[in-house]
């Protein structure tokens, strides 16, 4: 159970780090867009999509660990 909790904590920490990066990315993209530089919107959306996918994967990992430990 302790190992399970450690794994969940580590995954949660990663999700938090990813979220901070995404917040920065969204703010920077919005700033650039409002400044008339729309060219950054596509790469930013792609990177944000990859980060979101990583978040979903980590959440699924946490759910899996959670279920395994409870059994």
């Amino acid at each position, binding site marked *: 159970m302790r190992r399970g909790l450690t794994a969940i904590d580590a995954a949660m920490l990663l999700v938090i780090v990813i979220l901070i990066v995404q917040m920065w990315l969204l703010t920077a993209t919005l700033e650039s867009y*409002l400044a008339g530089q729309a060219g950054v*919107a596509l790469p930013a959306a792609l990177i944000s999509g990859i980060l*979101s996918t990583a978040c979903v994967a980590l959440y699924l990992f*946490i759910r899996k660990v*959670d279920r395994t430990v409870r059994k």
Partner: protein
Amino acid sequence: MKTPTKQLWREEFSVFAGEDRYVQRRQFTKFLMLTSVGMFAGNLWILVRSWFSNPRAVFPEQTVARAGEIPVGAVKLFTYPTPQDHCILVHTRSGQYTAFSQKCTHLSCAVYYSAKNDRLECPCHEGYFSVLDGTVLQGPPPRPLPRVQLEQRGDELIAIGMGT
């Protein structure tokens, strides 16, 4: 069909402290994951807006003022290109006419001309802009003020477009 021990409410409201910690972490991570998806949706929204916005829009020509109408150091407020876009025309100390959007690029407060300091000032967070080109001199605004392009035809000042 699920057995009673596997029902969701029994998992979410466990009587065991150890299991409760799992549920709290899992739910918190679920919330974080949904926030992450929200951030992605925000980025997608900006992308869609950038695809469908037209930066080369045709601006109308609009007479803003007559050349002798505004004394040196005075201003005239007008709207351009739509009635919702408030702008400010300044007759600077050097005798030039310059016009900018009146909306501060920080949090959209209305800027005004300070004749004493010869600059455009935002009263909300003390953001200062150059009256000559709209660049940020001080404060939190991240970008210069959008500039109204002016053309003098005879004694009329005509707005012909917007730029930076």
